[in-house]
């Protein structure tokens, strides 16, 4: 790490390939990612402001945004609570099957979203394993907004666990010791000492899960039932507009969603940058 800090500007290193690798990387990313994404805004700019406003403030569209953001928010909060408990348990305690639990946390990363979608629907549908228990109690999940939340919890849980876990591992035991010496009880130590140290990581995990939630499509479309104004999410509405060859409509709806994603991406990077700085300051 020290050697890196001492290195001078890029051109002076003897390692070859700077122009080649950076040039090719930028060309590839521009052609494949930046220019295509910019088209969303170019295409949106073809609309007059009034047209754009009409499309994006249409009640059905507004409701879809609301459902998307609210379900993502609820799922991300739930994931923060359970993600913290899981990460804590995986780092601090030992119990049989711990390694398996740890490995299973990555399943939502690796399992195709469509597979997750149909499996969750089967579980929470009226005749499903959990649906048949919950439905008589008046709790309807599949084809209702809670179904969307369930799908987003599934999709988001690894983000929280995997951002919080390494931070718990690196927590300084001595700080907790000191708190006890100063007379704090365990719960107080946790709330006043441990939780503030974990907060940036939790917030990063929350933002990652939330960002993933608002874009999620595959796992949600099966369980949500896709009823306009009730369980229709914004990505699905884009899909519907495309199927009706309403490209202007689809693009305008996408532009708003894209701006939200950009803001979240910036936030995530800012948080991670601050976390890294804190860590290197401690070292």
């Amino acid at each position, binding site marked *: 790490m020290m050697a890196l800090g001492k290195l001078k500007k890029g051109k002076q290193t003897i390692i070859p390939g700077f122009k080649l690798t950076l040039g090719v990387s930028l060309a590839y990313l521009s052609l494949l990612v930046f220019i295509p994404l910019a088209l969303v805004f170019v295409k949106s700019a073809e609309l007059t402001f009034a047209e754009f406003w009409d499309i994006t403030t249409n009640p059905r569209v507004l409701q879809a945004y609301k459902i998307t953001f609210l379900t993502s928010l609820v799922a991300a909060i739930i994931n923060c609570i359970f993600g913290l408990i899981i990460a804590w348990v995986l780092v601090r305690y030992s119990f049989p099957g711990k390694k398996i639990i740890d490995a299973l946390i990555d399943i939502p990363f690796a399992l195709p979203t469509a597979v997750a979608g149909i499996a969750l629907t089967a579980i929470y549908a009226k005749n499903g394993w959990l649906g048949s228990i919950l439905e008589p109690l008046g709790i309807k999940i599949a084809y209702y907004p809670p179904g969307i939340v369930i799908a987003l919890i599934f999709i988001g849980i690894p983000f929280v666990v995997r951002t919080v876990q390494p931070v718990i591992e690196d927590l300084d035991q001595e700080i907790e010791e000191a708190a006890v010496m100063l007379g704090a009880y365990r719960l107080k130590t946790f709330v006043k000492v441990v939780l503030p140290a974990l907060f940036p990581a939790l917030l990063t995990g929350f933002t990652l899960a939330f960002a993933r939630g608002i874009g999620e499509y595959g796992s949600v479309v099966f369980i949500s039932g896709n009823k306009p104004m009730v369980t229709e999410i914004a990505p699905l509405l884009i*899909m519907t507009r495309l199927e009706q060859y309403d490209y202007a409509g689809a693009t305008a709806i996408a532009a708003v969603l894209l701006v939200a994603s950009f803001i979240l991406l910036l936030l995530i990077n800012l948080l991670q940058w601050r976390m890294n700085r804190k860590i290197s300051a401690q070292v």
Partner: protein
Amino acid sequence: MAGGKEQKARGRHISESKLTKVILILIAIFFVVVMIVLPLLTVLFEGLEKGLDVYLKALTEKDAFSALKLTLITALIVVPINTIFGVLIAWAITKFKFRGKQLLITLIDLPFAVSPVIAGLVFILMFGASGFFGEFLFQNDIKIIFAVPGIVIATLFITVPFVARELIPLMQQQGIQEEEAAISLGAKGFQVFFKVTLPNIKWGLLYGVILCNARVMGEFGAVSVVSGHIRGMTNTLPLHVEILYNEYQFTAAFAVASLLMVLAIFTLVIKGIVEWKERLQAKREAEYLYLESGA
């Protein structure tokens, strides 16, 4: 990403009471079982519900086979391309200091942040009938949207970050001394990469490739937008699952889904092996350094 660090035994005064521990462990296990294990079991159970014959028939049926074929073809094209570019991007970012580097790292993540549906949409805007290149493609009779090239391009977009994201922290940590030493001893660029860098990053690279592959084969949203769902032509495995499911052929849908589930589990097994190998490598290096310093 998962840590293998063993925690030192903690004194009672800085740990929770036994009861709290048991409750927290039970909550964690309950969550994982209900949210993650149950869906996996459901796929298997529903797929095999009508017996092994029906299960196998769903997998060997003509449309399933062509979906499998298209999925494999897509992976064969996309994974090598994004592996090569992922390595190039990681090399540029980790071996040099230049202005705007942080911005570039952020931009690589864009495909992670963008909804898969929007990833599909942008290529419709580009190559679709009324898109920017629509006229040109139509006149030259080139089909991209609702055809295989569209699926390949959308999947390329989605999986750009995977290899680079795995490599960047790894290569950053390893620094550049070894490469500099090799070059001052007269090694050429490619020699340095294959003889010095690659052996150091091979396990991380392998995991990046496997993870990229899993996403390529499992991608649904983006591919769904550009594919046009033409049976036997532009159907990948996840799209085939959707079609079967929407036609109420649940058993067949879950049978095909179980193939994708096996892929996911295989990916995680590789991840476990890679982490184990990395720990071994780190341990060996630590021992080596220890011997060096002792001598």
